[in-house]
């Protein structure tokens, strides 16, 4: 067990009582502004055959970070598009190598597969370092101190054990990954710590497992109900083929429940991890509820109905909901400092995020 009581900070003045304030995260973005950015990103990415996507990513993240406020100040995303482009080129090269190796011979395919598998922890750590050191608040950068060698356990060994045990060890793998991340992040020179336990992740695992079973059961139930309703109403003579109705209802109910289960997992996950993080005596608090599932579900439906054009509003709506449920129980937010060492290394990791792994804050 990792000691969660460790304040993990040397920068806090421990002179007497610390005053506790609750700082609410606020998201100020709006759909039509993000729509402008999104459409220009798409246009330029297509025109440049994908090269602009690195710049597009920076603009998107700058918009979302720049519109997230904590204690009066916005977050900042500082990555250079060139570093991201380099990382993406490496990622594409790795994937191409993998797909062509398979054509040369089966053995070559397997060797490349194993090599890529062995490289995953390297990519994960690179990505965590890159994303965190390019995120800042009040002019102070975040950082990640996790070691590549240590990353093999949470990102390779435990996931494999998870697969071998048919998912039984998978929550434990998630726990290891989460600890690796949140015990190694830092803001300035102050490290974050997490007090998550295996129990929390097993709770999520079982919750999601039973929700998925229930969803499968409900799909069959809804499908049958719709069919018999149609039959009762005598509509089956209007609609010529009952198979097509059945297919449509099955597909749409499956989609609805799939989205619900994924959203439920995310909500439970956020609630678990964002209530256990501490940094320099400040604690993150999260009150995401089942409402999150409704936000994601309605977003998904609207994205489908608008053939994708609702996406910018959906992304903004999701961010607004998530941040409206995030708070920081703050003791002192003014005393984080930057180490001398940081000025050199934080000027941008040379290799960006090789694969966009989507992990970070």
């Amino acid at each position, binding site marked *: 067990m990792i000691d969660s009581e460790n304040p993990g900070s040397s920068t806090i003045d421990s002179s007497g009582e610390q005053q506790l304030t609750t700082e609410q995260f606020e998201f100020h973005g709006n759909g039509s502004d993000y729509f402008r*950015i999104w459409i220009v990103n798409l246009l330029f990415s297509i025109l440049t055959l994908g090269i602009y*996507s690195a710049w597009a990513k920076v603009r998107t993240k700058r918009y979302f970070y720049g519109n997230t406020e904590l204690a009066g100040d916005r977050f*900042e995303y500082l990555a250079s598009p060139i570093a991201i482009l380099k990382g993406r080129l490496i990622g594409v090269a790795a994937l191409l190598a993998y797909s062509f190796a398979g054509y040369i011979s089966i053995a070559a395919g397997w060797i490349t597969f194993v090599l890529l598998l062995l490289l995953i922890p390297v990519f994960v750590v690179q990505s965590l370092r890159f994303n965190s050191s390019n995120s800042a608040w009040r002019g102070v950068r975040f950082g990640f101190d996790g070691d590549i060698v240590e990353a093999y356990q949470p990102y390779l060994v435990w996931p494999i054990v998870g697969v071998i045990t048919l998912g039984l060890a998978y929550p434990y793998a998630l726990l290891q990954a989460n600890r690796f991340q949140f015990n190694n992040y830092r803001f300035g020179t102050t490290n974050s710590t997490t007090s998550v336990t295996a129990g929390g992740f097993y709770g999520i695992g079982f919750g999601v497992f039973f929700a998925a079973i229930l969803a499968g059961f409900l799909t069959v139930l809804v499908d049958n109900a719709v069919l018999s309703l149609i039959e009762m109403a005598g509509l089956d003579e209007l609609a010529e083929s009952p198979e097509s109705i059945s297919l449509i209802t099955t597909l749409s109910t499956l989609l609805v429940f799939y989205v619900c289960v994924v959203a439920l997992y995310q909500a439970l996950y956020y609630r678990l991890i964002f209530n256990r993080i501490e940094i320099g005596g400040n604690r993150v608090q999260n009150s995401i509820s089942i409402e999150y599932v409704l936000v994601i579900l309605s977003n998904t439906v609207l994205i489908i109905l608008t053939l994708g054009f609702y996406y910018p509003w959906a992304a903004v709506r999701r961010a607004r909901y998530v941040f409206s449920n995030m708070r920081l129980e703050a003791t002192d937010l003014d*005393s984080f400092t930057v180490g001398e060492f940081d000025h050199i290394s934080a000027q941008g990791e040379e290799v960006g995020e090789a694969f966009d792994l989507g992990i970070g804050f």
Partner: protein
Amino acid sequence: MNELHGNWFDGVHSRSAPAKLRWSSVGVVVITDEGLQTGADLNMLKISSPLPDTPTRITFGEKESFVTGDETGVERLRESLALNPGLAGRIERHMPVVLAAAALVVAMLAGLAFRGVPALAARLAVTVPEEISAQVSGVLMSQLDDFLEASGIAPERREELERYFLSHGEVATIEFREAGIFGANAVTLGATMIAFSDELVELAESDEELLAVYFHELGHARLRHVEQNVFRASAWLVMLTVLTGDIGAVGEMLVGLPLSVGLAANTREFEREADAYAVDRLLEADLSPMHLATILQKLEAYHLRRRDQENSTDDGENGQTPDAGGEEDSISYSPLDYLSSHPPTEERVAYARSRMNEFE
């Protein structure tokens, strides 16, 4: 007034100091509300590129930064530094231009998906060497064989048909199988292999009808439809991945739906091409295009019969649902037909009939 209001960060402490930034033609000075002053040359400033409604970050050298939400003020500072907002920044500012960009994006994506990708796939498909096609068909056949039985047709009859087919057009391999649940059918597996089901051979009333089917399948093989399909599917997948990189897992599943609709549309287009090819070859061999029409009609009647049998065994209680003959036609017009892989039989028969004038 050359002044901006915002917050000053020293880059060392996580303290935010409300401050004013003033600039002249040579330099800037930042004065915090507490009276602290920092100055710099104008050419040392770095200003983050403009984004709608997002605070601007102005940095001085290594550490210090000044953040302001005053967009018009920053615009003036940019002007005095002769910085332009960049093309993206300029487009984002004007909603009509943004909407034009959106229309352009839709047009380009549609053009790429419906013209670019098929053209590319057609070009690439012919470059696939026959050996690789043969390898792929071998794999596909062995997968199918899990559901199929060895042919029950007498070997002499099979050889006779094979000779007859090959005398009208070469293909590397012709296979016969008992198809069981799949019933009467024929498939093309890549450029080198065509397979017939016993049921189809039995359904046909003449060898000319079977030849018509063979020509249809040969059309698929010669026009490299299987290979084109593979290339189209992967090109679309790449497109979707590039486009939706940011959407996430749920989004990826959503974009999979149009992909399968697109593939179904593919196959219908390919069926038409293969029908046209079959009619051409029938005419070449001095045979009537009607052979294709009659076997298509027989196949449809056969599959409808099978479906009705299944339905009546399936729902014994609901047996009262009338299976009037008139309903059979309408089945091919159900809304989901857009998803089905073949064009309606009626349309295909009409096509064969329309080319009867070329036969005589």
